[in-house]
């Protein structure tokens, strides 16, 4: 589904991302972990053509992302709150996204009905604009909006951050269900190793812009990741 080749991003003299090759097959649930500054958001921004690659390219379902716009109809994402339109109510926002993705009101309503639990009564019918919702509730709205219109590729940056425990558990369930669909590829980044190992079939660790681990998730994965990141912190300072 997604093929990355020779991809790099350089700001001035600093290389923030350098991936020689990475292939994400259709239907995979793909987890991206790494410390701050590892290049997770850079990679996602490149996937969405929000920044220009310094070298290389990404091919999303036979469409080269930085030269054609044809990946947009089947790709959806929620990166951060700049993906929300503050002066709309959540409903209006969902319908707007629905409009963009060829879904009428009834389609959107049907989809939203599935997420009543996830919303926990705090999103719909609140008579509030998105800008006045709490960070967590904004996130819920943004995540669900990215499910509108049967996308084939869903990209979520740090979806678990800012959510309360109950919502985190529900979100895990939702992502698992989504990933279970054979034709949907889900890309999730997270700082929470437990969550990400639970929902993703494959985990890639980025460090200083490079892929340092590429693991198929198994019972030992969490341990392995903990050892990896633990070693990072325990590294003695030697000069």
């Amino acid at each position, binding site marked *: 589904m997604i093929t990355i080749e020779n991809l790099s991003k350089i700001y001035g003299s600093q290389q923030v991302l350098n991936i020689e090759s990475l292939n994400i097959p259709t239907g995979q649930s793909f987890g991206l972990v790494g410390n701050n500054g590892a290049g997770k958001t850079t990679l996602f921004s490149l996937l969405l053509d929000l920044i220009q690659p310094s070298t290389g390219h990404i091919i999303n379902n036979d469409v080269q992302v930085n030269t054609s716009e044809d990946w947009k109809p089947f*790709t959806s994402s929620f990166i951060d709150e700049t993906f929300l339109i503050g002066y709309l109510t959540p409903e209006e926002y969902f319908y707007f*996204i629905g409009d963009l993705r060829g879904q009428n009101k009834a389609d959107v309503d049907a989809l939203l009905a599935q997420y009543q639990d996830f919303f926990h009564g705090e999103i719909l019918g609140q008579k509030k*604009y998105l800008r006045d919702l709490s960070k967590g509730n904004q996130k819920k709205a943004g995540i669900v909006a990215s499910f509108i219109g049967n996308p084939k590729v869903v990209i979520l940056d740090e979806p678990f951050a800012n959510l309360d425990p109950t919502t985190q558990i529900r979100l895990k369930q939702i992502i698992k269900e989504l990933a279970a669909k054979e034709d949907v590829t889900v890309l999730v980044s997270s700082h929470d190793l437990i969550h990400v190992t639970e929902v993703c079939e494959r985990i890639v660790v980025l460090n200083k812009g490079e892929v340092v681990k590429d693991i198929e998730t198994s019972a030992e994965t969490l341990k392995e990741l903990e050892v990896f990141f633990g070693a990072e912190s325990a590294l003695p300072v030697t000069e």
Partner: protein
Amino acid sequence: MGFMGVYLLLSLAGAGAGMYFLLKEIFPDQSPMWSISQYFIYWILIELLLRYFMQKLPVMDIKPFLTTPVKKSTIAHYILGRSAASIYNVLTLFFIVPFAIVLLFNGYPAVNVLLWIVGVMAIVMCINYVNLLVNKNDKVLIGIGSILVLGYVLDYFGVFSVKEFFAPVFHALYAYPITVLIPIALAALIYYVNFKYLRDKIYLDAKLQSKSVEANTSDLAWTKRFGEMGSFLQLDLKMIWRNKRTKSQVYISLLMVFYGLVFYTQDMYSSMMPMKAFVGIFMTGIFLSNFGQFIPAWDSSYYSMMMSQNIPMRKYLESKVSLITVSVVFMFLLTLPYVYFGWDALAINFGCALYNLGVNIPIILYFGSFNKKRIELDQSPFGNMQGASATQFLVMLPVMVVPIIIFSIFYYIFNLEVAVGVLSVLGIIGFAMKNYLIDLITEQYKKKKYGMIAGFKEKAS
């Protein structure tokens, strides 16, 4: 901001220096000091009104201070002290100091004049702190507005001379220097009231928090008729209506319809046809330039979403074009009554509207692609220069000046009919080439996309 700010300060200083001679000219038989004292009360009321709209309350982020070992009274003093240094207080200084210097050169006693400045600044401080107390209360606003109108009406019809009543009061500030203590004492008192009030309110959930408004949902179903563009049109309308800054642009545009009255009613301009062309371009194109020049910065806070969503760039731009087109047509309809001043007024406005539609819309959209400055939609509506840069002033040249030059050339060589005809034909040609032009602009926006996304992410300081 820098450019406009310096310009504003310079013009204020110029006005201050010129005020002495102006007052002398208008009221030759009384001292300019007395004249200015007569209007002092109006100035205070008007300044209160303006500040209500323009001055931001110092709702500073007190959160980080609450948990530090800083006394609440210190925080309160800090908030109040900061507002004393507000730019609006400095503005007055820029006006009265040049005025005072001219007074000194004309032999007014130095002590009186200097203490008068102190007195005026004390009054400015009173206004500043009264404004804080008013705290954006609509009722007070209506009160001040009514007093202002009432006073003016009484004056105008000679029922009771508000001017003559208050003139000696404010003139005393100059005539009897010791009275300077009164405004100072008053300012201190109002400061103290503010301080008492603030000190007890420094909690996160108390007054200092900005309030949120209840959302009113509307589905604007009629926009569906515009097909695919409908949803963008709907989004733009909601944006305009639900954000202070865009809403005020609409009000300003509507008010500008009266701009024509200034020119049509004065004999001086009745023979100056190029001036009428300017008015025509201006009135029918005011929304075009006010709103259009900041496209796509209006969408800056969610631009990365717009760019990664399933939105073809062309559709996005087309919807902006239709919105502005509607505004030009609407503004033209509003100027129809000017036919009262002669058919040529109508003809000129019509030609100008066509020119705006066909030529200026593509131009302004093209220059929009150079926008890289973020606009916070919900910030103070009036006098907000956010998102503005030198480009905006450059854009105004081709938009406003070029049609007037074209009009003038053809008017002076041939006649009015030819001049209007040329503007109209240019507009129609532009309109006919619309699809081609939008294609070009779309390419330009695609090229500039990454720069815009990066620029819009940077929050202005």
